[in-house]
C-alpha cells in the first residue's frame, strides 16, 4: 500500500504547470489528492511525475454572482460547502457537497478535482451535468471551456487533453421558481453511494420540465429527462436510460430499486423546493 516512485514538481503558475505536463506524457496533476493518492497507494495508477498545483496563487477563489458560481481548481469542498452565496445562488451544489465523503476528506479534496476525476460514483459530475455547467481548462494553446456533456467520455475518463489543467468550474444559477433536490443511499453516510440522484424541476403545469441525474447507476454520470412522466412511472422511465451494475456492495436489482425509490423522492423534494422558492 505504498505508491511507486514518481517525480515531483511544485510550479507557481498555471503556465509553468502546463509546461511540466506537456514535457512528460506520464505526468498527472495533484490538487487535493483524495482520489489520486489512494490510486497511487494501491498502484492502480503509476504516473512518472506529479505536478502539484497547490502553491499556485489565486486558484482557490470562489466567485458568485447572479449568473452562477465559479469555483477555482484549489477551492476545497469544505470551503465551497461553507459559502452562503453558493448555497443561495445554486443550492444543488451545496446539497450534493454535503454528501461528498467526510469532513476530513472535504478539507483537502477539491470540487474541480472531483469533476475532472470523472468518477461515475461521485456526486459533483452529476450536478455539473444537471445544472448545465462547464469546466475551464488551460493548455499550451490557451484556455477553453468544456461543457459538461462533452466532459465525460468513459469510466474515470474526461475529455481533458494530457497537457491541460482544469482551472475552474462554473455552475449556472438556479432559475427563479425552479427547484432542486439531492439524495443518495450509502452504507455509511459519506461513503460512496450505492445509488444517488439529483433532481431539477423548472416551470409549472404544462410548462414543467423534470430532469434527474444519477450517480453509481452506470459507467458514466447520467441525466435523464423525465418531463411529463407520471409519478408512478418515474423510476422505470429512468431505468430505461440507466445500466446499474453488480458489485460487492449491491446487486444490479437492488440498485434498480434504489433508482425507483430515489427518483420519486428527489422529484417530489425538488417540486416542494420550487413551491417554497416561489414566494
Amino acid at each position, binding site marked *: *500500500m*505504498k*505508491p*511507486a*516512485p*514518481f*517525480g*515531483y514538481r*511544485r510550479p507557481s503558475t498555471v503556465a509553468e504547470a502546463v509546461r511540466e505536463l506537456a514535457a512528460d506524457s506520464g505526468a498527472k496533476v*495533484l490538487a487535493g*489528492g*483524495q482520489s489520486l*493518492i*489512494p490510486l*497511487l*497507494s*494501491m498502484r492502480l495508477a503509476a504516473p512518472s511525475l*506529479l505536478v*502539484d498545483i*497547490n502553491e499556485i496563487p489565486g486558484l482557490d477563489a470562489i466567485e458568485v454572482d447572479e449568473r452562477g458560481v465559479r469555483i477555482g481548481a484549489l477551492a476545497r469542498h*469544505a470551503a465551497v460547502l461553507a459559502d452562503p452565496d453558493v448555497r443561495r445562488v445554486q443550492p444543488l451544489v451545496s446539497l450534493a457537497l454535503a454528501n461528498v*465523503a*467526510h*469532513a*476530513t*476528506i472535504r*478539507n*483537502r479534496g477539491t470540487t474541480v478535482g472531483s469533476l475532472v476525476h470523472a468518477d461515475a460514483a461521485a456526486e459533483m459530475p452529476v450536478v455539473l451535468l444537471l445544472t448545465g455547467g462547464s469546466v475551464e481548462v488551460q493548455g499550451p494553446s490557451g484556455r477553453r471551456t468544456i461543457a459538461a456533456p462533452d466532459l465525460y467520455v468513459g469510466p474515470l475518463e474526461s475529455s481533458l487533453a494530457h497537457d491541460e489543467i482544469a482551472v475552474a468550474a462554473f455552475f449556472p444559477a438556479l432559475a427563479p421558481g425552479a427547484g432542486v433536490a439531492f439524495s443518495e443511499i450509502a452504507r*455509511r*453516510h*459519506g461513503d460512496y453511494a450505492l445509488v444517488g440522484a439529483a433532481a431539477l424541476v423548472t416551470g409549472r403545469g404544462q410548462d414543467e420540465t423534470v430532469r434527474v441525474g444519477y450517480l453509481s447507476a452506470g459507467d458514466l454520470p447520467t441525466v435523464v429527462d423525465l418531463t411529463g412522466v407520471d409519478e408512478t412511472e418515474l423510476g422505470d422511465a429512468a431505468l430505461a436510460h440507466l445500466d446499474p451494475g453488480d458489485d460487492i456492495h449491491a446487486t444490479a436489482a437492488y440498485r434498480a430499486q434504489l433508482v425507483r425509490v430515489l427518483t420519486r423522492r428527489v422529484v417530489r423534494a425538488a417540486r416542494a423546493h420550487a413551491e417554497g422558492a416561489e414566494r
Partner: protein
Amino acid sequence: MSEELHPVRLTVNGVTHRVEVPARRLLSDALRHDVGLTGTHVGCEHGVCGACTVLVDGDPVRSCLMLAVSAADHEITTVEGLAAPDGTLSPVQQAFAECHGLQCGFCTPGFLTTITAGLRENPCPSHEQAREMIAGNLCRCTGYQNIVKAVERAAQIGASDKAAS
C-alpha cells in the same frame, strides 16, 4: 537507480523538523518514520478508516492521503500535540478516559484529532452532530456509543473550562 530525495521542512506540534524524503513518502509515514512520532496510526492507507487523521493548519486531514512534500510549510498537529506541555490531558483526551471511549486504542489518535477540530468548529454539538463529527472514523471495538458520549462530555468540559477562565 536511487530515488530523488526532497528536502522538506515539517512543522509538527510547533517543532520544525528537516527531513529528506522521496516524493512518494506519505505524510503518515514521514511523521512516524522520519520524525519519530508514532502516535499517528496507519490503518487502511486509502482514506477510509481515519486512524491517521492529523490537523493541518488546524483542519483534520488524512495523513495517508497527503504527501510529505505537500505538507512543507504547513502547521501539523498530531495526537502528541493535543495534551498541554505539562502532560495535562486536553478536554477530548480527558473525556475519552472518563467515558471509556477507547478499548484497544488503535483508532484513538484519529478520533482525538478529528473531535478536537470538530469541537473547535461546533463547541456544543447535538447528539446527531456528535455522531456526524465522527462518521469518517472507524472503530472496531467500542461500538461508538462511548465515543459519542466522549464527544458530548468533551464539549461539557470545554464549556466549563471556558466559564472558569
